[in-house]
């Protein structure tokens, strides 16, 4: 199928009106408006990531494909094909030269952006690979999956360096901190664990009283906190040094799927953005925890969200009733 790009009518009446009334109260509120709708995927889109320089947007999904789009105009560039099962997560190397993808075919593939092709397959997980991330120097990759392990890979040689029997349920998210010395992982057992990347030792476990399934976790840009999404429709910001939850964000709906949350830094302030099972995107103020904007337009659960590295641009994508990637601008 030919991938196509459509320019949405920028002045969608009802949408614009709502935005206006919302933003009139305070000038520092985000004002994201839909600008582009990208279609091409044939099944649910599970992951969206902007390249570190912002020039490319990669999307991957249950249709086993990775699609590359222009990071700002949304023009379709290329489809990368190779996995034999659906893809759950993708991650860019910090220099943007490589892209890693985690698939239900139990492998991780590394794609070269120079050659626009697959250059390595990491084999080792014994069940679906669900999440993947690079470290700062992009010489290591961390992955987690339904075999309940967290694996750290030497990418240049394609060999696993460490296998951490990290959790007692599928690992839903795993990532390095900004300097690559720590790893955070979370799983359906509701635990968030912090690991020493070098020794593989567990340093800390964060757990909420109700033990809800933890679906996504990531470090803040300075790595002093972790942002965790749980399937009790809550996003929490944890101070992992003191094991204290310092912020709680609610209002969206998240009971079934693993929906990631992202930080948005704009001249207007700092926000948290997350998809929701009520087909919307929610934007909270980082400090006040108020919902500042709700983006409507998707026709199914919004599974994937990505934030452009320097422009005020959010990309979002949904499940199979929608199949579109939407780019929202606030500029």
């Amino acid at each position, binding site marked *: 199928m030919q991938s196509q790009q459509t320019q949405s009518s920028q002045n969608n009446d009802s949408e614009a009106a709502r935005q206006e009334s919302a933003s009139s109260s305070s000038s520092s509120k985000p004002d994201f408006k839909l600008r582009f709708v990208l279609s091409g995927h044939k099944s649910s889109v599970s992951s969206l990531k902007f390249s570190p320089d912002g020039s490319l947007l990669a999307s991957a999904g249950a249709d086993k494909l990775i699609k590359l789009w222009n990071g700002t105009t949304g023009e379709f560039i290329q489809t990368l094909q190779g996995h034999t099962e659906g893809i759950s997560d993708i991650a860019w190397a910090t220099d943007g030269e490589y892209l890693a993808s985690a698939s239900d075919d139990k492998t991780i593939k*590394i794609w070269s952006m120079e050659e626009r092709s697959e250059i390595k397959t990491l084999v080792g997980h014994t069940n679906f690979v669900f999440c993947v991330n690079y470290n700062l*120097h992009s010489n290591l990759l961390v992955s987690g999956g339904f075999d309940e392990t967290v694996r750290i890979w030497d990418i*240049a040689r394609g060999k696993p*360096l460490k296998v951490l029997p990290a959790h007692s349920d599928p690992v839903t998210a795993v990532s390095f901190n900004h300097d690559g010395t720590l790893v955070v992982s979370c799983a359906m057992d509701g635990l968030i664990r*912090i690991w020493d990347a070098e020794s593989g030792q567990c340093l800390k476990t964060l757990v909420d009283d109700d033990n809800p399934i933890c679906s996504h976790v990531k470090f803040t840009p300075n790595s*002093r906190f972790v942002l965790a999404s749980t399937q009790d429709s809550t996003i929490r910001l944890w101070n992992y*040094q003191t094991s204290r939850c310092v912020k709680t964000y609610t209002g969206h709906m998240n009971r079934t799927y693993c929906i990631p949350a992202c930080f948005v830094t704009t001249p207007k302030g700092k926000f948290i953005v997350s998809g929701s099972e009520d087909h919307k995107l929610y934007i909270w103020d980082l400090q006040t925890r108020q919902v500042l904007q709700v983006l409507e337009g998707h026709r199914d659960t919004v599974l994937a969200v990505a934030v452009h590295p320097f422009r005020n641009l959010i990309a979002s994508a949904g499940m199979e009733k929608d199949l579109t990637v939407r780019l929202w601008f606030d500029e």
Partner: protein
Amino acid sequence: MNESLINPFSTLSHPTAVQTSLFAGALFAKFDPTGRFIAAARLNGSAEVWDLETRAPIRWYDGHVKTITSIDWSRNSRYLLTSAKDWNVLIWDLSSTCDPPQRHAAIRFDAPVMSASFHPKNSQVILAVLATGEAYVCDLRKQHKSRVELLETIPDEGDEEDIPPRAPMTTARFDPTGKNIFVGTASGYILIFNTRTKTMIARHKISGAGAMKSFDFAKAGRRVVTNSSDRTLRQFILPNYAPYQPISETEQPPFLDVELEPTHRFSDPINKTAWHAMCYSPDGEWLAGGSADPAGHKIYVWDLSNDGQLATALDGGREPLTYLHWHPTKSSLASTTNHGSILIWHNPTPERWGAFAGGFEEVDENVEYEEREDEFDIEDEAVLFERKMKAEEEEVDIDTVVSGSQTSALFGGSGPTPTSAPETHSAGEAGTPVHVASLGMENGNSAADVGDLAGIDVDAAWAEEDPDCDVLSQWKVKVVMDNDAADFY
């Protein structure tokens, strides 16, 4: 970043056990200043850079046709220098993506190069010692392009006939600031040269040392440890060196001629084995010495904050040690065996199983639990929620990075060292037998004073003129996908 969780008090201990050994076929190996890599010199003249995170070689530098004699890293690890017995000093650029790697620069001398090093502030200034006992400073910068031999100033005693011949130079190092060059001679002298003017500013006789073999500086640069042919390591506290002030063109420049007394002497009293290498820990609190014992791999660690007592003797097995280097930030050592393996030593942190359970805290001994007055009170959920929301009002900072190395560097810099007291001595007071050649005592002091006021920045500014391209985060090491070597390592 992980330091605060592993070791909240950020004290640096010495390594205790071998963490891993790398089969590198190395003569010697040196950590880079960031601690990410280790460079290994191989017998066949090639150099290898290993990534310590993946424990695998990532770059192979073939350029020398004879044995490599020394390796040095530029300040932010972008450039690697190798010197060899084939009369060449080669410089490699780690950020280069050429395959096979091409050398970044080459300097050719007229004799085998025994050691070479980068200026700590500018990798375009290079110091080299030749097998013939000469030391050169090579400046590769466009407007300074030069090669200057460091010449010992022979005090002019009036008698033209019996000027003693200059002793061959055996080792040379920049001090950590790069302002001075320390040269060791075969006759047991340390000569100090100003890097900018290349003139000798001081000379220290080390009595009983014999030929100097190598130096190592504590990070602040006020302490130096020497290895010499009498099989003893000596630690000295350095006096303040006044930068050279030109008084007149014709007159011989003055220099400080002082005999230094070591604060500590380290030697093996029983076997009297020599030392192959020694290295300070990053905070300068420990000194590690690699024994030249032919029957074993022994590393001695002395506790300098505890009057230089022997803290431990590490045993690395039966392969004799050839070289030793301390990690730039961590409690980790790299020692090389004569079979070519690099042993990486570390200080293992015990596994804390309590960390696996959330909200669980390990206690060392039984604690009598005291129930709080309100512990089992049933509180209104609304009140609890209110209180929680109130607590969450506090602003959080998600962007400002507070790195562990910064805090530890601060700690190391201001930390109390037992040797810090004498470091405030000025040039005139340092040591006891002060003898300033061809100038009176008063003149010597005034020169020192002027230097303290005006001279310091001249040297720093000189070094930072025409800076090199080794700036952090402006270059990166490209990950080279390696499909062939996968099974070999």
